[in-house]
């Protein structure tokens, strides 16, 4: 593909140009290599190789850093932000912003830019792939074939039909809408729960996730993680979904009460689960590792080689906009932010309604 050639063709520029704007990179984002290949002539990327407490050896003092690139696996808390007094911009390489103290950013006037809708198609593709995998036992079947070479016949358990089923989407934002669009072509009935009913959408709306689960064959979780959505899929919701119900999670691990999910999977109270995210990544509950009715992927729903280039372009574009005092391309705007004049007071995080 042309985009791949573009990356491979560029050479690593060797320079020590102190005039380039410095950008601190936290959390080893997947796109870092590509970012360096494509933009080392525009930015000086500073990558700490030690823990946060001692951000050495950096060749530039932290006090002058005005831009940070942060991955979803890095908790950009208030104490960390306070190490960067000149910070004006945080660019996260994820669509989610639950790992960033948005209130601290708001108080200090630090702009936050996210990936916006960049990954929505990729994540929706993966969500559908995971749904088919868990209901039709694709990964389990692949394992079976690779280990049953001596079998005289194939005796493999039947799966469940997806076409025509009722799919409950939790969070009908950009990703949720892409999932809905794909599953409609399978003849599925789309239902949803969101913070507010979406007037432009004709899918049936459910105010309660329990009611949604009770009427769905599968739930697909696509919403952002915040205080209101933490453990939104709890014991009651899972019981309502039932023994032949399936869950797909491409949002955040903590959308589900993971301990309860594991217990219900072990007890057969739920049909199966396909999980790209977990409460304590990269740790996955060991009970899941031997189950055939689960599919486990390492938080990679967004990561294709096609989107990485676009992500780098977006990250660089947001930084350049900030440096030239222009509007950011994908500025994250929370609906409610609590400001406090006493900056050291911890304030609760807000809930971005635009994302779900």
């Amino acid at each position: 593909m042309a985009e791949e050639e573009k990356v491979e063709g560029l050479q690593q520029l060797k320079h020590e140009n102190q005039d380039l704007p410095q950008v601190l990179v936290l959390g080893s984002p997947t796109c870092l290599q590509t970012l360096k290949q494509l933009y080392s002539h525009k930015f000086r990327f500073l990558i700490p190789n030690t823990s946060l407490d001692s951000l050495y050896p950096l060749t530039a003092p932290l006090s002058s850093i005005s831009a940070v690139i942060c991955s979803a696996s890095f908790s950009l808390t208030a104490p960390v932000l306070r190490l960067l007094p000149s910070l004006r911009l945080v660019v996260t390489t994820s669509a989610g912003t639950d790992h960033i103290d948005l209130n601290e950013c708001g108080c200090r006037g630090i702009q936050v830019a996210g990936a916006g809708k960049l990954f929505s198609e990729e994540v929706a593709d993966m969500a559908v792939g995971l749904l088919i995998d868990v209901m039709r036992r694709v990964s389990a079947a692949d394992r079976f074939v690779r280990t049953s070479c001596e079998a005289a016949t194939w005796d493999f358990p039947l799966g469940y039909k997806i076409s025509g089923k009722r799919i409950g989407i939790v969070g009908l934002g950009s990703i949720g809408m892409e999932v809905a669009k794909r599953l409609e072509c399978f003849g599925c009935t789309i239902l949803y729960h969101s913070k507010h009913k979406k007037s432009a959408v004709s899918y049936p709306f459910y105010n309660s996730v329990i009611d949604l689960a009770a009427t769905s064959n599968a739930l697909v979780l696509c919403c952002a993680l915040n205080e209101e959505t933490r453990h939104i899929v709890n014991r009651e919701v899972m019981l309502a979904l039932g023994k032949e119900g399936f869950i797909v999670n491409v949002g955040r691990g903590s959308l589900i009460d993971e301990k309860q999910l594991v217990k219900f999977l072990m007890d057969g109270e739920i049909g199966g689960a396909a999980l790209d995210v977990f409460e304590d990544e990269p740790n996955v509950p060991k009970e899941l590792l031997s189950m055939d009715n689960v599919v486990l992927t390492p938080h990679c729903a967004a990561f294709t080689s096609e989107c990485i280039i676009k992500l780098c372009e977006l990250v660089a574009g947001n930084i350049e906009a900030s440096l030239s005092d222009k509007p950011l391309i994908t500025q994250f705007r929370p609906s409610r932010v609590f400001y406090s004049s006493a900056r050291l007071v911890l304030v609760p995080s807000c809930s971005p309604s635009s994302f779900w």
Partner: protein
Amino acid sequence: MGSISVLLVGKVLPYLEQELDKRYNLFRGIDPSQRAAVLRDHASSIRAVVASSSGGPDAALIEALPKLEIVSSFSVGVDRIDLQKCKEKGVRVTNTPDVLTDEVADLTIGLILAVLRRICECDRYVRSGNWKKGDYKLTTKFSGKTLGILGLGRIGAAVAKRAEGFDCSICYYSRNEKPDSKYKYYPSVVELASNCDVLVVACPLTPETHHIINREVINALGPKGVLINIGRGKHVDEPELVSALLEGRLGGAGLDVFEKEPHVPEELFGLENVVLLPHVGSATVETRTAMADLVLDNLEAHFLGKPLLTPLV
């Protein structure tokens, strides 16, 4: 009808076997020695044969059953049945179209995503503990890719409809161009393969389509191309496919069928760009039950002198 003799020659859903047992005088002849014994003692009384994708009556068997009136297949593919012989002898043949179309199309999309997004590999990666050492690598996007469909019948069309939800461009090859189709037609399989990212085999197996996926087609599909076979194993020249995958001449493959099921070339087991399934295209509780009911309903209709529901011959 309990006195009507029926011979079972292919593996079917237990529910179907039980119902056949209840309603008819059922003889099991899946195993060759079993079949030989049945033929020795009961050949002249058998009026119906139930077949499946794993076994069907060839010319010799049809000849050996002088009272044979109908073959009802628990599958949509009838490549195991000698249709010509059935026509000659006036033997009716039924299959199970439509009830499994959605199922197979669903699985096809699942296979494509499993290969392109490495879902099975990712699952292995997590289960083996490798995620603790680092992230999995980048995979390939499906949305927006070009899908080539070999055989735009019921299943091919259902696959195309689903792929449209992913903003895929669809093109196809068929014996004859379909004038009502909105998809782009290519007059040869090689041209189709040259112009798509993912090639789906969805046509019936006939002498014309045997090894329709050969070295030339595989090379045309190329090192970034992906082959998905939900048809029959014999659609693909399997040794050619294996060497193309091992040499990197083909980007990946999702296979639900193989030339000599349940044998799968072991060279494929070590590859991360293939997904291997044990012929589960229609393997859901819902569909297998519907297929079984169709077999039973066709047999009943025949013996009651009513029109067959899904006749092929």
